[in-house]
């Protein structure tokens, strides 16, 4: 259902979308039933000359059923939603599949900066690639991200991946994703972080292993990068800055 509003591009986006659909079906049903009862009763018992109201306390057994049965049914629906939600939550936020790649993500006022391994695939080596607002990942590859903040609370959000995690100063929070659709997607900051909050936009490029290797090549070799800059730049046209920590 959510696909109609925003395409999903990670392996867990279908499970989140399904959960949302399930909830929509359940609460949608209840909402319609409850609203229908409301409007029907308003119509049925509208004031008519010569028809007095009935004296009903709500303690009568046969009437109380109208509350207690829905009550039990709502509990049943709640249990269903809880089970479905916890299952998806565990798979997204608790039980990670083994990592194939790891990147570091830093939130700061007002940009996302990334540290990605170079050709050797290992972080904290000389060929690490540092980018700002621009993250490149391989399709169908499980990435872990280590999320930190340099100043205030930010929130690392990739709506197309159905991914969101706050970056909290003083902590390193690890999460994962596995993109399964090629393309360029938005990275948002969803936690207010000062005047530049609305400008804290990044891009994540999901590419084939070949494209990714070529990107690493360009990014580690500054002279190449200068020429290829337009291809890897953020959409606002500014070349990707290289920051070394």
């Amino acid at each position, binding site marked *: 259902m*959510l696909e109609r*509003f*925003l395409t999903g591009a990670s392996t867990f986006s279908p499970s*989140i979308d399904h*959960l949302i659909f399930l909830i929509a079906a359940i609460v949608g049903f209840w*909402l319609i039933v*409850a*609203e229908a009862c*409301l409007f029907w*009763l*308003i119509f049925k*018992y*509208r004031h008519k000359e010569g028809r*007095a*109201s009935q*004296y009903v*306390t*709500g303690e009568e057994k046969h*009437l109380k059923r*109208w*509350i207690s049965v*829905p*009550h039990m049914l*709502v*509990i049943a629906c*709640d249990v269903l939603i*809880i089970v*479905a*939600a916890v*299952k998806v*939550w*565990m798979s*997204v*936020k*608790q039980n990670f599949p083994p990592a194939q790649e790891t990147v570091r993500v830093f939130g700061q006022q007002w940009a996302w900066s990334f540290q990605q391994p170079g050709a050797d695939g290992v972080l904290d080596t000389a060929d690490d690639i540092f980018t700002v607002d621009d993250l490149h990942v391989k399709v169908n590859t499980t990435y872990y991200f280590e999320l930190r903040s340099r100043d*205030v*609370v930010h*929130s690392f959000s990739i*709506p*197309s991946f159905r991914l*969101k995690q706050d970056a*909290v*100063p*003083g902590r390193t*929070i690890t999460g994962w994703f596995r993109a399964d659709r090629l393309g360029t*997607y*938005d990275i*948002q900051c*969803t*936690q*207010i*972080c*000062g*005047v530049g*909050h*609305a*400008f804290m*936009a990044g*891009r994540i490029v999901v590419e084939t292993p070949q494209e990714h290797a070529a990107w690493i090549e360009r990014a580690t070799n500054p002279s190449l990068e200068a020429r290829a800059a337009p291809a890897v730049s953020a959409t*606002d046209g500014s070349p990707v800055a290289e920051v070394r920590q």
Partner: protein
Amino acid sequence: MSTQAHQAGAGFFRKYLWATDHKIIAMQYLFTGMIMAIIGGFMAYVFRMQLAFPSQHVPGYGVVSPGEYNSLVTMHGTIMIFWVAMPVLIAAFGNFLIPLMVGCDDMAFPRINRLSFQVFFLSAVVLLASFLVKGGAFGGAWTAYPPLSASGAYNLEPIGASMWLVAVALEFVAFLLGGINFVVTTLNGRAPGMKMYDIPIMVWMVVLASILFMFSVGPLIAGAVMLFFDQNLGTGFYNPTQGGDPLLWQHLFWFFGHPEVYVVLLPAMGIVAEVLSVFSRKKLFGYKTVLHTAWGVGVLSFVVWAHHQFVAGIDPRMANVFTITTLLISIPVAEMVFVYIATLYGGSIRLTTPMLWALAFIAEFMIGGVSGIFLGASASDIYFHDTYFLVAHFHYTFFPIAFIAVFAGLTYWYPKMFGRMLNETLGKIHFWGTIIAVNVIFIPLFITGAAGDQRRIYSYAQFSEQARPGLQDLRMTATFALLVFIAFQFVFLFNFLWSLRRGKRAEANPWLANTLEWTVPSPPPHGNFAELPTVYRGPYEYGSPGRELDYWPQNAPS
């Protein structure tokens, strides 16, 4: 305001700013709340215009800068909750109704009551003054997460941030003081014969709300002082480099923040209960059920707070616990709503303006309530957290509470408060205009939220997915609907002011209701009751079999 209200001169100060009469204090709260509502509504107008027409001149304001946008949103949220919903629902209605409904001459502690309003008024002044200081008003959201709120280097509004904090803390103190009176007067000031289950639901709800508020706000008061120290005295309670923890504030804030939403929900439910039963001429369907579910909501509300923090960096296992508690809380709320709907069964429904508002409250609040389930389910909240879906959720709960229920209450008790009847035709025009417009404001926001619009964003130009065609149309639709909404509010304001002088004179009991406030003249004189009443039965004896009249006042001997 009573006829005495129009006396000018030296007595004015003593009478209105130094008054201890609960009815006058109620009016002070009501009018302050209404003015704040207009201010908060104006802010919504300005930032919605910015969202619809980015970076263009907003008539009546000018061009909005990103910093101003944040301040406007922050102040809008803070004002609407703390300076509109709370003063109007709890303080204005609570003060006006509790002594009248329980049958005594005033609050138990009139001078504490006066102090409460004075502190509240001061807090409003401090809040509004923060717009004038260097750096401008605080813009770090009504949730004020540190480190952003703790350091002027991050938020660029060092003075504004502290003033915001002081104002909010003063407001808390005002409501702690006010709560004393609501609780004590209800418990001890009741008329002879009024047993626990004879107290009108409205009174119970204000009392429960005050208790919830008192229990939840304590830790946050301590937390606010710590934040103030962090801002101004160099401590690091929330600063990890000094051994603090930013998440501590989030826990303290939401431990209060979640119960707070029920603090305003319950009095709104109370108003609706009174209006529903009067205009369907029906006993409330299960008085005790309403009361018990309200207690249930109150107790559960203390164990759901971390559903605001699912993705905030808390231990992910905790999220499962809070998903369970959050979904559980839908049970008592649902039951309360069902009971209200069931009250209509077998009634003789008169669709007066107050009744329309009360029915609309139920219809609209259910939409807000069920949208909360999407957020309470941890995994779907990963997507919806801090999107406009969330914004739409809480406006579908807050708007019914702070405006729809308030309009129900105002139109219902207006004759009692001011001694005049409101104009029904104008009332109905206002009703339909408002209800249709408000749905057209907030339904599009569910959609933009589902499409990924994140909140507190000045302009979506930076985000290619959000700049897709279609979404901007929805944003503009919401803004246009807001303009229509505002236009219809003038109908209300006109009706309100015009009827003060020109409305038909109200009798003591124009709606043929049972509760004690309708046994005294409209408006009630100082001291309320010429002779203090004795109570013989519950508040909702309508359509009682074997009686000529279809109502049965609480104080009528059988």
